[in-house]
């Protein structure tokens, strides 16, 4: 029933398209070259849900950036969980690729084509160039190219709807944080599932964004990572396979029109809404309600939400372990605080499945521990149990934090894996201690 109705909509849609006068596409040489550099990406990845190791498949888009086969896509298309990546070139030939690195904060990932295979099979590909997203204006015409719903090499057209949309999501990229350090391009070019990772380009075929997300159910509200951000991330990923950022633990909020209350000149200062407990900023004595006036002497202006990601980025770009001089106003006093940055960590720790127990776990990260007011990052979080398996039978459930196994504190996944290996070699009852919203319970995993 559903199928037939969707078919009729499809037919109606096609009919309408036939009636329309064909629009003249932008057919510059650059645009054609761009079209030939867009690829379809098929990813098989491992998941550790429900207490077992499982595989899932997804389709996304990407764009070839260089003659040596670098492909830019989204972090939510290709992540370190990927076990197999296949690229469909413009020639429709399929080639393997490897992940060079990812950066979920900006939702970008970098792949490299299997050049040996390309050479062996005599395949050809072209690459596109990154343009300058900083020069975009709202209203500029842009095209999205990608693989919506698996429809390879689909071009849609729209305009830039907004050049700097702030948008932060703490679980936006498969449970990982995104959007704290960049603003997004907003476009009304049609972007659907499968467009992810494909380029947003100007009429001359220059990449100004990487299409990433859209509001489900809304009409043509889609977002892309600006090429100016992508440029920096690509460089970092090529160089180190990862982008390292600094963390101090400040959570800014827009100052808007609180200048009067804080007795500030207009357009200066960032309101510190919150300071993460135990973070470098908290240890230095900063607290919620403080006003940050300058970082290392550079004045900051965080009046509006749009201005906050660049300020966060300014801190993130400092080398890890560097001492920042933060000028802070509290009440009528202004003084400098020295804060030594830490390496920024995701709240999502390493995951694993202990399959005979039917238990999947994730290492408790420092930031998960902070968010959940755990005393430190000891322990592993239960992210799934398989019904009928020992962990489920013992009474463990998703959200529990395993603190000890056979009386050993679980400081890392290694401890869990070692206890599991012992169990696999010689199954015996295994004692676990776990926290469930601060309450301690004991569990026995029985063979």
């Amino acid at each position, binding site marked *: 029933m559903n199928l037939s109705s969707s078919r009729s909509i499809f037919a109606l849609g096609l009919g309408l398209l036939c009636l329309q006068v064909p629009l003249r596409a932008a057919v510059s040489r650059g645009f054609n070259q761009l079209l030939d550099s867009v690829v379809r990406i098929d990813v098989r990845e491992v998941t550790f849900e429900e207490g077992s190791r499982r595989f899932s498949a997804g389709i996304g888009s990407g764009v070839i950036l260089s003659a040596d086969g670098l492909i830019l896509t989204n972090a939510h298309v290709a992540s370190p969980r990927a076990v197999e990546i296949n690229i469909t070139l413009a020639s429709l030939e399929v080639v393997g690729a490897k992940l060079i690195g990812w950066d979920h904060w900006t939702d970008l990932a970098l792949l490299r084509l299997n050049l040996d295979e390309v050479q062996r099979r005599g395949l050809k590909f072209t690459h596109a160039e990154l343009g300058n997203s900083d020069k975009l204006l709202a209203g500029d015409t842009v095209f999205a190219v990608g693989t919506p719903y698996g429809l390879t090499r689909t071009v849609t057209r729209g305009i830039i709807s907004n050049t700097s949309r702030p948008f932060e999501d703490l679980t936006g990229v498969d449970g990982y944080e995104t959007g704290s350090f960049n603003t997004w391009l907003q476009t009304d070019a049609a972007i659907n599932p499968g467009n992810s990772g494909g380029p947003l380009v100007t009429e001359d075929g220059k990449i100004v964004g990487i299409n990433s997300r859209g509001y489900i159910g809304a009409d043509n509200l889609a977002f892309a990572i600006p090429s100016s951000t992508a440029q920096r991330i690509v460089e970092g990923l090529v160089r180190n396979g990862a982008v390292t950022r600094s963390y101090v633990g400040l959570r800014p909020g827009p100052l808007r029109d609180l200048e009067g209350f804080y007795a500030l000149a207009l357009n200066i200062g960032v309101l510190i809404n919150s*300071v993460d407990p135990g973070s470098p900023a908290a240890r230095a004595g900063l607290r919620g309600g403080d006003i940050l006036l300058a970082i290392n002497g550079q004045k900051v202006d965080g009046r509006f939400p749009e201005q906050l990601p660049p300020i966060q980025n300014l801190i993130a770009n400092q080398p890890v372990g560097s001492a920042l001089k933060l000028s802070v106003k509290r009440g009528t006093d202004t003084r400098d605080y020295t804060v030594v940055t830490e390496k920024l960590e995701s709240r999502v720790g390493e995951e694993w499945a202990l399959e005979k127990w039917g238990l999947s776990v994730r290492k408790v990260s420092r930031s998960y521990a902070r968010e959940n007011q755990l005393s430190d990052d000891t322990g592993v979080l239960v992210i799934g149990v398989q019904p009928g398996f020992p962990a489920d039978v013992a009474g463990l459930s998703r959200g529990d934090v395993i603190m000890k196994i056979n009386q050993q504190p679980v400081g890392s996944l290694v401890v869990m894996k070692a206890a599991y290996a012992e169990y696999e070699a010689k199954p015996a009852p295994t004692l676990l201690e776990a926290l469930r919203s601060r309450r*301690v319970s004991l569990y026995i995993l029985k063979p």
Partner: protein
Amino acid sequence: MKFYSCLLLTLSLAAGRLPGAADIPALWAERVKSVVAVEFYVETETDRQPGLSYGTVVDNNGTIILPSAAVDPRVSPDQLKDFKVHLAGETASVPGRYLGQDNLTGWHFVRVDAKLVPGLTPITAFAAKDGASAPGPALAEEVWGIGLRNKDEDFIPYIMVARIGLLQSLPQRSAIALHEIAAPGLPVFNRDGVLLGLATSSFGQSYLQFSRPDRGGSPVILVNVEESSVFHLAEEVLPYLGRVPKNVSGRPLAWLGAYGLEPVDPEVAQFMKLDSQGAVVISEVLEGSPAEKAGLKDRDIIVALDGRPLPRLKPGSVVVSYIDRELAKRVPGDLLAVTVMRGTERSEVKVELGDEPKLIREAGRKYFDRLGLTVREFVYGDAVALRVKSGESTGVVAHFVKPNSPVAIAGLHADDWIKEIDGVEVKTFDVAVNKLAAIESDRDRSEFVILASRGGETAVLRVKLK
């Protein structure tokens, strides 16, 4: 001698042959004088919620007990207003006075106006002559209890009859009947009219609803709040009827300071060779508590109190209530010997029980109507919940936030922790009250700023007053 034994035999035979011999209507007429309906109001910042409960008369002074569920535990005693007591089947009511809640039994005590007392019969009049040692009901025995209809039917009493299906320690000795046997808080009798116990709050019954559209849907749990199938036996009721609270707060309250008691599950107990008894893990020993002073540690496993091993109760979670009751039976200053397992070592710790720190329901509160906010004194329980050291805790708690009020529009939620007002740290409740009172009365003020904390994160909220 011969004659007497012969007579006894005859009597018992008669009882056996004629089970309906007892004159239930006559017993009924006497015993409905022991039950009342109690109406009251819970007065909040913006409205008055009516409350209704059923109660049992316990003495000749007009003292009535209501089951613990009669009043929401978050309600402070000073919010309880206008108690009115109705005799079963009577439209008219007389005023009553709220005396407080007993910590051990959970009962709320109410005393009725003297003029109603002559019409009441205390439930003790129907207790077995040898009191608490009377044998309880037998399995499958048919028993009866009293229910009351609603106010629109003048609280007419009616009878419920059922057989006993299960006798269990929860941890109080309790009987579970095969269906509803009395309204919660009202008495249950045997066929001779002897008091067997008081009905507690109802149990949920699970039903599988086959017409539900979702496949494999879980059962629907239905709870009959007006009638219950469970009652505590007379031995769990009669000894405690005299526990009339000395004040509405129910103090003195003994305090141990062991937080998050979790039962050790039977398989784990077996693994630890504790399978013949109950055991409970202490999740956290609270800062500054008697437990901490006595040297108890987080993760200690309690195995005995005053040398008596914890009983193995079913379900396992009941053993936590057992410990709570053991504490409630004691008063501050009492010594309690707690035997714990720490790793594989067993040791006994003597704890001098303390006085329970001020509870949320006892905390100072003040409502500011124009701001739309009730602030509440920050108490020890808040420090525990927020994981801050009680010495470091300042500020007040947003106890109530009026919908669409200035503070609600600014983004304040109930239970937010207010740390600063207008950029100045709020050190005490009085400071907060004075500051907010000044803001509220200043008609020229157009805004003020709150620093509030929620879930460990703070936010600056700007409250617009104009």
